[in-house]
């Protein structure tokens, strides 16, 4: 978490809009790991892409961030983050 905060501080110094800090993620298990996303982008990317991805969709997104964009997210965190995103920003269960 300390690294995440440090990276966020850097990102903000790099010209982020102050209002970005108003975008928050819902509380829930795995939120702390999901906060690693702010190293590269604002969290509204997550809200914007909801709620239509299932867990496989969110897993693919997280893996893309690691494999393509080089996000320094430990492989062990992928499952936790994808579960958190599917739970809080995923496709609602079929009625």
């Amino acid at each position, binding site marked *: 978490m300390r690294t995440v905060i440090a*990276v966020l501080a*850097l*990102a903000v110094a*790099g*010209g*982020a*809009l102050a*209002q*970005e800090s108003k*975008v928050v993620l819902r509380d829930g298990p795995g939120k702390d790991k999901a906060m690693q996303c702010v*190293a*590269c*982008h*604002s969290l*509204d*990317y997550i*809200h*914007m*892409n*909801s*709620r*239509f*991805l299932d867990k496989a*969709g969110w897993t693919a*997104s997280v893996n893309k961030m690691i494999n*393509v*964009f*080089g*996000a*320094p997210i430990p492989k062990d965190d992928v499952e936790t983050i994808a579960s958190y995103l599917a739970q809080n*920003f995923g496709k609602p269960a079929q009625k």
Partner: protein
Amino acid sequence: MKKSDVIIGSKLRRRLLAGTAGIGTLAVLSPARIFAAEVGSSGALGFAELPDGTLAEQFLYTLPGKVPLIKKTYRPPNFETPIEYFRAPITPNKAFFVRWHLAGIPQVKAKDWSLTVGGESVQNELKFTLERLKREFKPAEITAVCLCSGNRRGMFEPHVPGVEWGVGAMGNARWRGVRLKDVLAKAGVKGDALEVVLDGADQPALDKTPDFAKSIPVEVALNENTLIAFEMNGQPLPHWNGFPARLIVPGWTGTYWVKQLVSVKVVSKPEANFWMSTAYRIPRGMFKTPSFKSQLGKPNEPITTMVVNSLITSLKSGQQIPRGKPLPVKGIAWDGGAGIERVEVSTDYGSSWQRATLGKDRGRFSFREFALNVPAKEPGSLVVMARATSRSGETQVEKLIHNPAGYHHNVIQRVYVEIV
């Protein structure tokens, strides 16, 4: 109206938009009132609605030097132009959409900026200051639409991930600068030149993230319409739109219009970075747009030119129109560079079409205005559709051509108004 009616209305409407319900059911709907209040709602314009999370998180926000735009994301900044600004054929600089891939966007000063022209397929590497570029080459100007490849992605059903744009990731401007071909001629293009690679000053947050660079075929780079522009509508480019210089590739989607341009390389091999080899691709053969031949892949190929499209700007779904007066259907149409041949309007679910009057011709790469008054005599729901056809005979589609990255949405719009 009971709440359940609204829900049923909205579900039915979605089916209708997808083209799965019969005409008869349309008459019972007055569906769109529920959408009208939301900023940037595509449902309010008679399209499939944006994802719920997109609608909930977007609002009008003012970037320095801009009017309030629809905020999609803060970092990297992605902001959409509200529909009101498309009621004029030229999009004001202050209202022009903002789209960046990487979070590191430097504030470039004109005096510090330089452009390097090189690569293995030029004879001499050159470096230009802004002054020198302006001094050494003949000025050129063109009116052209800059449209994000993913414009209207948010209206895809089923939704696909990405920036969930509505209709406003586009704009039309008068671009002024110098011809890329003149600059390349000075450097001397060798016979083996295949592509020209464009890179901007923007940087990723992490070293490992692929830097955003794009290539275009050498013949497109040498086309007289391809410019290095410093001005937009008679003013220097706004910071958010690529100050001090960006590439203009009329007809081609915005991804190739590299902002804060600092490097032009003429190369003999296909550019292989992520933004060319993986991103901005469409399944091969799915669209009739020209192929980028040196970049063809097995399952897919790069997006190239825009598909023909239109936008009704004078009406919103759910709007109440007093009967007896003619209903003005106005909007804009554009395509990938053939030019607009005609725009037709239908008020009978596409059974018959009537030609609209086209506005001033600002060139084949520009927005073209259209207008038609339709009678509004009987009270009740009326569906208004517009369909543009290009001079190459291409026309808008009735049903979405779904593709994984959400490109080329040019489904015919259906605005539902109420005659009262």
